């Protein structure tokens, strides 16, 4: 089975802060996001009020002081704490010995920052100016969060602030479009333009209260952007405001957060029954679309060769860990083949080729071990299967694994189905539970 690329997707988060290096060479690296409406009087008023709380957050390579990534942030509360994205500060979080963090205010003043805490799953981080330095706020009143109880209505005007592409501080007007459907964690669908470098900047309502944090945009769409709901930022501020600044790599804390995330994902996933793939002979596991998105495809009816139908289901949400590592997702897919027009020999050749055309594990040997596999002929509910289960362990996030299970039915000479589940960043026990759950989704359907 080859991977279907029906839609390309911006990896959540990693584009915003990290694509800046590219953007510097190509000022139009960000898509021309349609004609932005001229700034309205309320945007102007809002920006005037909030600009003092706005900062650019830059990660500098220690020693040569060149910037490794650029994002935005905003001052909340009276003690000068700054909220930004985890992916804006991830280099510092993982390699504090190589990077340092600075803020730049709208008036151009700079200062060093310390990392207090982070929430990698929601892509948030809390930083504060190093003691002894000036406050990061350039005057005015710190931003406040909009109370959770006051829900926004679809279509309400909201304003995203930040420093796009390191060009200068800006306000982008757009609309609140509710939460992203089928997202594992709630994520606000912002109908407006976000560009690299605005990551970590605030999104404000008409009253200037923070409703979310800029985090990502879809590059294949127009003005389809995403915000982290403010309540997660608020929770992080509450949790980490008095924390000791981080000076060591945060792998242990990251692992703990990812462990909790994978536990939630696995439990919610295991609690769901499989959907039917609609195959006349086989029960093939297809996940519910509550937090996954499925795409289907099939051969045209007049094909002379192998007929197949496939479905690809994947979670949108990935947890950004570093530029080389995103995790925390599930994907399930299958292909059902009918080779009765081909005959047994030709069908077997294609069926085998499709089974061979599978990759396991990711090449990066610093982050993952090489995959280790178990394989057997398995009989599940009367259906003989070839099952291959491969696992790679994370080297720096101890206890997390990438799981892949590949299955091919082996009961008919001219028809068959092959399927696969991929779970990234799960514990060993959950990997086993997911694999068993997946295999149990197979079987022979009772004769009609």
């Amino acid at each position, binding site marked *: 089975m080859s991977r279907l690329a029906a839609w390309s997707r911006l990896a959540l988060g990693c584009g915003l802060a990290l694509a800046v290096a590219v953007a510097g060479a190509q000022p139009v690296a960000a898509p021309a996001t349609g004609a932005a409406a001229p700034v309205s009087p309320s945007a102007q008023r809002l920006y005037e009020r909030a600009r003092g709380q706005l900062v650019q957050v830059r990660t500098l390579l220690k020693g040569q002081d060149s910037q490794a990534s650029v994002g935005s942030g905003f001052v909340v509360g009276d003690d000068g704490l700054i909220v930004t994205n985890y992916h804006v500060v991830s280099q510092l979080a993982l390699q504090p010995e190589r990077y340092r963090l600075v803020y730049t205010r709208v008036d151009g003043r700079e200062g060093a920052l310390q990392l207090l805490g982070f929430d990698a799953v929601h892509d948030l981080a809390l930083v504060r100016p190093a003691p002894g330095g000036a406050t990061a706020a350039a005057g005015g009143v710190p931003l406040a969060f909009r109370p959770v109880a006051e829900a926004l209505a679809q279509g309400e005007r909201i304003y995203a602030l930040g420093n796009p592409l390191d060009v200068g501080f800006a306000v982008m007007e757009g609309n609140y479009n509710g939460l992203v459907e089928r997202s594992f964690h709630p994520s606000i669908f912002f109908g407006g333009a976000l560009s690299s470098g605005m990551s970590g900047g605030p999104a404000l309502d008409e009253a200037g209260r923070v409703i979310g944090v800029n985090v990502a945009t879809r590059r294949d769409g127009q003005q389809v952007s995403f915000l982290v709901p403010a309540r997660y930022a608020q929770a992080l501020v509450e949790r980490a405001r008095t924390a000791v600044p981080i000076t060591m790599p945060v792998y242990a804390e990251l692992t703990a957060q990812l462990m909790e995330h994978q536990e939630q994902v696995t439990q919610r996933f295991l609690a769901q029954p499989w959907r039917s793939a609609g195959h006349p002979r086989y029960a093939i596991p297809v996940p519910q679309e509550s937090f996954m998105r499925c795409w289907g495809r099939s051969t045209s009816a007049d094909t*002379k060769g192998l007929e197949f139908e496939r479905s690809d289901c994947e979670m949108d949400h990935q947890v950004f860990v570093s530029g080389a590592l995103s995790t925390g997702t599930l994907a399930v897919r299958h292909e059902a083949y009918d080779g009765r027009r081909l005959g047994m020999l030709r069908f*077997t050749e294609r069926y085998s080729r499709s089974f061979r055309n599978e990759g396991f594990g990711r090449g990066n040997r610093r982050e993952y071990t090489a995959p280790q596999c*178990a394989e057997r002929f398995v009989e599940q509910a009367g259906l003989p299967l070839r099952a291959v289960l491969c696992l790679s362990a994370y080297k720096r996030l101890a206890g997390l694994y990438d799981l892949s299970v590949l299955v091919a039915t082996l009961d008919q000479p001219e028809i068959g189905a092959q399927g696969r589940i991929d779970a990234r960043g799960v514990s060993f026990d959950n990997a086993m539970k997911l*694999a*068993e759950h997946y295999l149990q989704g197979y079987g022979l359907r009772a004769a009609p």
Partner: protein
Amino acid sequence: MIRLGLIELLDPHGGVAHRVPVTQWPVTIGRALDCDVLLDDPHAAACHATIRADGDALVLEVGDTRNGLRLRGREWPAGSRVPLAGGAEWRIGRSTLRLRLPDEALAPELPLAPATTGRRRHAVTVGLVALLLWLLGEQWLRSDPGDPLGGYLPVLVGLPIALGAWSFLWALGSKVFTRHFDFVPHLSLALAVLLASLLLGALLPLAAFATGWEALARIRDLLTLALGAALLYGHLSLILPARRQALAVGFATMFAVGASLHLVLNQQRQDRWFGPLYLSTLGPPALRLAPTTSTAEFIEQARGLRGALEQRARDTGGAAWLPDDEADE
């Protein structure tokens, strides 16, 4: 006149270019006109050597020469005296000479090369047809019903041309070194090895599928390598029959080195000695002989991976050979 012996002047390929009958000893060898064996070699002295009878034995005396002569793997300078027996070969300058004596034992008669027999030709034809059918069968497997027949043309035309050209080039080599244009032996060798590798390449994975014994599919790479080495060895030993032993040692060493390199690269890239990672060939369901297991048992088996994974996860230094960029992306 009694023929006491014969002195043969050999050509560079070991054939006899010129014979000088010996009717009396001593025999002088050199460039001077009064020599019995006249050499046309600028690296030979006027009177380079003399063969004398010394009682019953013969002795080769090296004359007044700066180059000396070479016999039995040794240099003999001017003034040396070397005992000679029938069949002895020595080099003077760039010429090779051989002494034949009536009492020397003859090598037994060699059988004719089998290439010339009709059975060999018959076998080659059968092999060629088998190979062609095999490749056409593979092409048929890959095509869909109703595909144009033109797809078979490259196989039908390409295979005989490729095989013919391959054997022709090797036969040219034979012609240069043995003076025989051994096209059929080279062709039959190439055919045999090609058929063997196709057969093994197809049967091993299927056997692995049938028995559930994955190791069968994993030795395929090494077998292919061995067959490749065997093919080259076979061609070269047809060209240089005298050097068969040295070639065998050479190719065995090459295979050993190549196989180790292959295994080490596998180990570095995939953390395993033998690829592929999983048994990636599926046969028709009826071929499966191995029993099935239950899902629970399979998961239990997979739990056994944990120890190895945990150990490898701790081994963070294992990727030191990867360039930084590759590891970071």
